[in-house]
C-alpha cells in the first residue's frame, strides 16, 4: 500500500541544513496497524504528515496505492488523499462553529455526496459510535474523549482505507484512551489500515508493528 524510498526532508536555517527526515525506507501493507514511536522532535509527526500528504518531502520516492506521489500534481494528490485517507489529531481539531453532526458531515460535502446519502451515512456512524444523542451539540460542550470520538467518526465517515492518527490519546485520560485504542483495534480488524504516532508503549502494543524514530531516522 505504502512504499517510501530514501525520503529526506530538511529545513534550512542560515547556512545550516537541519534534517527532519533522513533516508526513510518503509513499506506498509494493507491491513497493518503500525505504531510510530520515538522521543520528542524525532520526526514522528513529520513522517505521518508526509504519508498523509499534508506535508511535502525534499527527496525520495513515495508510492501510495501504486501511484507515485512524488510525481503527482497538487490536485491529483488531493484527490488521492480525499479518497483513501482519514486523519485523527491529538487536539481533535473539530470546527468549533459546527455541531457534532455538521463536523462529521463536512468531509462528505467536499466529496460532493448527495444530501440524502450524507444523512444516512452520518446517522449510521453516529449510531455506530453511540453518539446520536450528542449530534446537535457543539464541540466545546463535549468531553475530550467524546470530542476524539467525533474526530474519529469524521475521519471514518468517507470510508478511508488508511487512518492516520497523531497521538490520538495524548489529551485523554487512561480510560478514554483505552476506549479509543479498542476502537482502533476493532477498525483494524474490519480492514482499515492504521498508522498511529504515540508516546505510550501500552498504546503501541495495540499495533502489529512498531517503528522507532530517532533524529529523523528509522532505528533498526
Amino acid at each position: 500500500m505504502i512504499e517510501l524510498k530514501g525520503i529526506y526532508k530538511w529545513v534550512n536555517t542560515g547556512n545550516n541544513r537541519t534534517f527532519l527526515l533522513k533516508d526513510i525506507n518503509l513499506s506498509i501493507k494493507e491491513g497493518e496497524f503500525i505504531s510510530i514511536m520515538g522521543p520528542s522532535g524525532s520526526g514522528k509527526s513529520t513522517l505521518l504528515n508526509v504519508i498523509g500528504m499534508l506535508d511535502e518531502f525534499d527527496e525520495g520516492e513515495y508510492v501510495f496505492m501504486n501511484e507515485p506521489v512524488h510525481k503527482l500534481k497538487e490536485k491529483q494528490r488531493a484527490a488521492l488523499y480525499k479518497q483513501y485517507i482519514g486523519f485523527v489529531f491529538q487536539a481533535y481539531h473539530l470546527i468549533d462553529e459546527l455541531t457534532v453532526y455538521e463536523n462529521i458531515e463536512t468531509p462528505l460535502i467536499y466529496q460532493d455526496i448527495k444530501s440524502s446519502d450524507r444523512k444516512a451515512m452520518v446517522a449510521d456512524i453516529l449510531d455506530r459510535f453511540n453518539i446520536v444523542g450528542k449530534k446537535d451539540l457543539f464541540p466545546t460542550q463535549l468531553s475530550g474523549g467524546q470530542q476524539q470520538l467525533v474526530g474519529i467518526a469524521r475521519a471514518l465517515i468517507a470510508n478511508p482505507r488508511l487512518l492516520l492518527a497523531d497521538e490520538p490519546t495524548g489529551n485523554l485520560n487512561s480510560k478514554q484512551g483505552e476506549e479509543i485504542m479498542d476502537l482502533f483495534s476493532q477498525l483494524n480488524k474490519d480492514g482499515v489500515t492504521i498508522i498511529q504516532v504515540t508516546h505510550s508503549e501500552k498504546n503501541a502494543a495495540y499495533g502489529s508493528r512498531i517503528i522507532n524514530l530517532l533524529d529523523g531516522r528509522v532505528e533498526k
Partner: protein
Amino acid sequence: MFKNYFKIAFRNLARNKIYSFINIAGLAIGLACAMLIILYVKDEISYDRFQLNADNIYRIVTHNVDKNGGKIHKEPNTGYLQGPRFMQNIPEIKNFVRIQQGNENIKLGDEVKNQELLYVDSSFFKIFSFPLVSGNVNNCLNEPLSVVMTEDAARTQFGTTNVIGRIVMMKDDSVFVPHKVTAVVKNCPQNSSIKFDMLLPIRESQADATNSENWFNSFLNTFVVLNPHSDIQSVESKMQKFYVADTKDAIISLKKQFGDVVESWKSEYHLQPLLDMHLSTELPSHNGLSGASNPMYSYILSGIALFVLLIACINFVNLTVARSVKRSKEIGIRKVVGSDRKQLIFQFLGESFLLCLIAFVMAIVFVQLSLPLFNNLSNKALALSYLFDIKLVAGYILLFVFTTLLAGFYPAIVLSGYKPVKTLYNRFSNIGKNYLQKSLVVLQFTLAAFLIIATLTIYKQFNFLTNEKLGYDDTDIVTIQKNFKTHEEAWLFKNELLKIPGIVSVAPRNGGSWSTIAKLGNDSTINFDYETVDESFLPVLKIPLALGRNFSSDFPADSANSILVNETFVKKAGWKNPIGQTVNFWYNNNKTYTVIGVVKDYHFESLNKKIGPQLFTMKPGNPYEMVFIKIKPNTASGSLMAIQKTFKQLFPLNPYSYVFMNEKNRKAYEAEAKWKQIMLFGAILTIFISCFGLFGLSVLSAEKRTKEIGIRKVLGASVNGVVTILSKDFLKLVFISLVIAIPAAWLASNKWLENYPYRISLSWSIFASGALLVILIALITVSFQAIKAALANPVKSLRTE
C-alpha cells in the same frame, strides 16, 4: 454546501460581535453614503434629460472678446432678434423659443401679489416636453392676453385645476388687464432647468422685432432646435456670418452716435447643448432658468463617498486577515478533511457576501432615514423611489458586487492559502511584518486626515464668506421693491417714511444689477456696474468715501452732471487724480459726467466675485426700483407695520413685501453653509469608520499579544509601559499617514481656494489642528483597548497558553 457555508458565516458573525458590528456598521455607512451620492449625481446628470428632443435643443450663447484684456467673456443671454432671424436664414435651425424672466402683479381675491413667471414664444410646448393637462399645445400661447399655468398655480389661484377659460387679472402698467387661462400644464419636474408657475406670450413690439440695434441688447434665453445630425460648427459659422452681415448697417449708425466703443460690443455666436447647461459654470442657467449647479459639488461628494466606502472595505480586509489566526484552525481542518482551495475561496467570499448583504439592507434603511436631511443640505428633492430606476438599481447591484469582491477577495485568497500542517500544529503565526495591513491602515488614515484638513479649509473659507466684512453695514436695514414712475414719487414715499419715529433714514436705488460700458477721456473703454441712487444711499449703508464728496442737495446740478466711482473704477481707469475726471457712458448722446467723489470699495456683489468697477449716478432718467430703510435697532415689528401702512396708503394696487438685508446676505451663502455641513458629516464619518477599524485591529493585536503582555507584566512592566507598547505601533502608522496627507491636502485646498477671489490664507493652524485631531482620536481609540489589555491579570493569560 452553501447551506454549510452560510451556517458557518452566520455563527461566526454572531460569535464575534465587535468584529461583525465594525464590519457591518462600517460597510453600511459607506454604502449608504455611496447610495446617497449616486442618487445626487444621477439627479445632477439627469437634468433636462426628460426633454424628448433634448439632443437637438441648443441655447444660443455668445463669447465676447474684451479688447483690452483679450479675455473672453461668455454670455448666456441673447435678445429679441437672434432666435427669429437665425431661424429664417439658417436651414438647419428648425425652430426657436425665447424665454424671458418676468413678474406681474396679479389679483388673488382682494390681495395683490407679485407673481414670477416666464414670457415665452408660442413654440414653447412644441420644443419642450411639458405635458398639458388641458388645453391645446398648438395655440395656447397664440393670443397676447392668454396665460398658461401649472396645476399647483391653478390650485392657488382658483382652488381647482379645471380652469380653462377663467380670467386672471394682471397689472401691466397701471391698470389690471384680464388674461384668459388657455392651458394647464403638469408641474415642472424637479430636474428641469426650466421651471415656471405661469407662462405668458412674449411681448415683442413690431418696432422691437425690426430694429436691428436690438442685436446688442441681451436679456433673455433663446433656444433653437436643430435638424438631427446637424454639424454644430457649420451652423455656428453660418450664424456668425449672418450676424456680421445683418448688423453692418446698425453698427454704422450706432458708431455715429457712440463712437468706436461700438466695435467692442461685437459677439461671437455659439451653441450650448441643452444638456450641458445645468452643470456649466461659464454659461449657467440663469435669468429665468433655474437650478444652476456646480459640478465641483458632484466631484467633492463622489470623493467623500469613495473615501468612506474604501475605508470601510479596508476595515473589512484588515480585520478579516487579522482575525485569520483564529480562523486558521478551521481552514486547516477543512483542508485536511478534503476541501480544496477553490471551495475555501468560495466559502470566504460567501461570508463577505452575507456580510455585505446585511450591510446593504441596513444601508437602504440609513438612506431612507437620512434622505430628508440630505435633501435639505443638498437642495434636492430626492426620494428613495428614485432607486427603482433600472439603471440605478443596476448601479447599486454593481456597487454591491464591487464591495463584496473588494472586501472579500483579498482575505479569501490569503486565508485559503494557509498550509494545514502549520495551522494545525500551532506553528502558525501572523505576527510577521504585515506590510499590507500596515499600508492599508496608512491609506485609511491618509484619506481621513486629508478629508479632515480639506473640511477645515472649506469650513474656514465658508465661514469667511459668511462673516467677512462686506464694506457696508447691513444691520437693521429693510428693503422694499417698488418700481417708482419718477424720482419724485420715490422721494415722496421717502419723506412719508421719515415721519415714522422708528425710521432713521431712507435711500432709493435701482433694482437688480445694472451694468454698462463707458468711454473714458483718453478714448479707452471700461465695463462697470452702475447704480442709480440719491445722496442718502452711502450714509444709509455706512459706505465711506475715500476722496471727494457725496451727492448733496446743496448742489442741485449733481443729478444732471455728477457721478461717484469706486476705488476699483479709479484703478481700472488708471487715474492719478480721479476728482474732476469725466466719463461718457454710451447711451447718453456723448454727454459727459464729472467724478465728484471716490467711494471705498465694498462688496456689492457676492464674495464669490471680485469687486469690479462701480459707478453711482442720480440721473433722473434711470428708475428707482427699491428703497433701503434704516430702522432703529429693536424696533422691527413696529417699524415694519408702519412702513406697510404707509406703502398701502400711497400705492394700494402694488404688492408689498420686505426683506431684511442682513438676512438676504446670509441667504446668499446658504448653499455654502449647507455644503459646509455636508463636508463636516463626510469628514466625521470617515474618521469614525477609520477609528472603527483601528479599534478592531487594536483588539485583535492585544489578543494576539496577550502572552507577551503577560510575560512583560510578570517581569515587571508597568501598565503605562504596556499601554505605550501597544499604542506605539498604531500611532506610528497614523504619523506616516499625516506626513502623506498634509502635503496632499495643502495642494488640494490651495487649488480649491483659487476658485474664490476673496479667500482665507492657508495657515499652519489648519494643518496642525487637523493633525492633532486625527492623532487624538486615534490615540483614544487605540489606548482604550491597550489599557484594558494592560490591566488584565497576567496569571490568567499565561495559564491559558
